[in-house]
């Protein structure tokens, strides 16, 4: 089942098309939106595992910006650079400086294999004392690393319900506009269930075919989180 589980999420994100010396996520910016009822952090963990265990490309590097949990929490998943963001723009500038140091430390041919993972963006906002403008500036610079010149990939986690009470959730919408792929993790509309923990919609909006291969589709499937893996299946198709 685990190999099939990889297929659904991998297929939706294009990870099943990993090739040598190519950016695993195709240099895309992926935004994962979750909520209190259903945490999306497992998607981050699955992605990281997938990227680091890919046998087709051993050059994959993950730069993990961990704000949500102590680093020991992620110990069994990976080890990476730890970014410390202080308050305000200067802290975020320093964080970006750290990221570019890591990027430049990689051999030039491997820089496209870098994936920056942020867990999670709302806590960067807290670290920046609520200045969403500064955070958007920082995210813009991270996004610029996905351009053709650098070719990195970017994965960000943020919370839909955190902003949904606002009249205009501008911060989240700005992130949605910038993202090439949207992964929305929600609970089932019917409520809690023992064997289905939630549903996931993946919207690939690479509108202008940035990487020259069309992968524009919308995928919807359900998931069940197990001890060491996640099971993905289409509604009603769980065996």
């Amino acid at each position, binding site marked *: 089942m685990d190999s099939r589980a990889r297929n659904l999420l991998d297929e939706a994100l294009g990870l099943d098309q990993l090739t040598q010396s190519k950016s695993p996520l195709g240099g895309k910016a992926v935004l994962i939106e979750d909520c209190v009822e259903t945490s999306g952090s497992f998607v981050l963990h699955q992605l990281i595992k997938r990227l680091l265990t890919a046998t087709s490309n051993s050059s994959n590097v993950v730069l993990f910006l961990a704000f949500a949990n102590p680093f020991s929490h992620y110990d069994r998943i990976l080890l990476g650079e730890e970014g410390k963001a202080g308050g305000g723009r200067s802290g975020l500038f320093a964080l970006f400086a750290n990221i570019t140091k890591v990027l430049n430390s990689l051999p030039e041919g491997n820089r496209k294999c870098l994936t920056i993972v942020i867990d999670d963006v709302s806590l960067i906002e807290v670290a920046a004392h609520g200045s969403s403008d500064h955070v*958007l500036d920082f995210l813009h*610079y991270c996004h610029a690393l996905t351009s053709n010149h650098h070719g990195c990939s970017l994965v960000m986690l943020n919370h839909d319900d955190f902003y949904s009470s606002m009249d205009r959730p501008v911060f989240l*919408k700005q992130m949605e506009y910038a993202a090439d792929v949207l992964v929305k993790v929600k609970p089932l509309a019917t409520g809690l269930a023992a064997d289905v923990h939630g549903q996931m919609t993946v919207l690939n909006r690479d509108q*202008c075919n940035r990487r020259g291969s069309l992968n524009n589709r919308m995928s919807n499937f359900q998931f069940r989180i197990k001890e060491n893996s996640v099971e993905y299946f289409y509604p009603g198709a769980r065996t």
Partner: protein
Amino acid sequence: MADSICRTIRDGALEGEHAPSLTIKDTTASPYGFGVFTHVLSQASTLILAGKSQSRGLVVVAYSRSPSFYLDFLKRSGVDVASSQKWIHILDCYTDPLGWKHQLADSGILPSNSSAGACLFQDVKDINKLQSLILELGSGLVGQGKVRFSVAIDSVTEMLRHVPLSKVAALISDLRSHDQISSIFWLLHSDIHDVRVTTSLEYLSSMVASVESLNQSSDGLSGDLGNLSLLEQNFRRGKFHVRFKRRNGRVRVMNEQFHMEESGIKFTSVTVEDGLVSQGLVPKVLFNLELSEKEKLERARVVLPFEHQGNGKPIQIYDGRRSLAPESMGEVSADTSQSSTEECSNGGGEIIYFRDSDDERPDSDEDPDDDLDI
């Protein structure tokens, strides 16, 4: 209509008039405004290269994509970019808008580099400098004379993050009235801004193109995933609504539909059938909630238990106590309980209904409420 927009951009400005200006606006419910922007960009570029446009050059102010993205896109669209330095300049406000990379380069952390074929702009808060640079780059393409050039801003939303509305409006207004500007077009994400901002920019526009979802949901993408069918219907397609403001003040409104394809955005006219297509509000579940044609036909054949069916038989008004056919009273008295059955005979349906009132004796003086224990 997209073609009308491109023709207006092609025709450019009349002497003594403001240059035509286009606002393209979208929302997260239908975030395909960038597809429209790049479509207009590629059409304008093609016309400039073919010499069929008043404009002889194009300055792209790039906030949301890198210069190399635009050059790659134009190349994939069949536009000759080999000679790009002669007709297009990209003002790069994407790579290093706040000068962070410049600072890192100064401190030796990052090697300095410049975008190939683009002018790097590192101070997006200085709108005056931006305006001067736009005019300088444009003049560099077309010369100082009467020849005009066009300006494209890929995200006024991003510009407004750094510069207040009044300055953005002043920039657009100055460009529109400049002798060398043929046309201007820009993209705005209207749900990021309040109504005042959107309205101000629309006032400055001679054309407003809105990208909307085919079916409105409560809150676009942020809505409940139970609106999955709506998400699917709105995915990569939607409505394209354009408002043209003519010089004489008359407003013309046109509607189209669009869908995103591998080669880009495609526009189609709205047909009558499209307008009448069922919106399919029934949620997609594992059990069937709709009737097939056969089932609809059989339902239509069921004879309802009304006396006046209008089928040629004498019409008798039902008084609530007498049944229609007196000879059936014997059968009714044998079965006094209310029952209804549905049977199919020869493909039709019939409902047989026995009224409780058939059991009552007519013209009774009894007070029907006598048995109440109040």
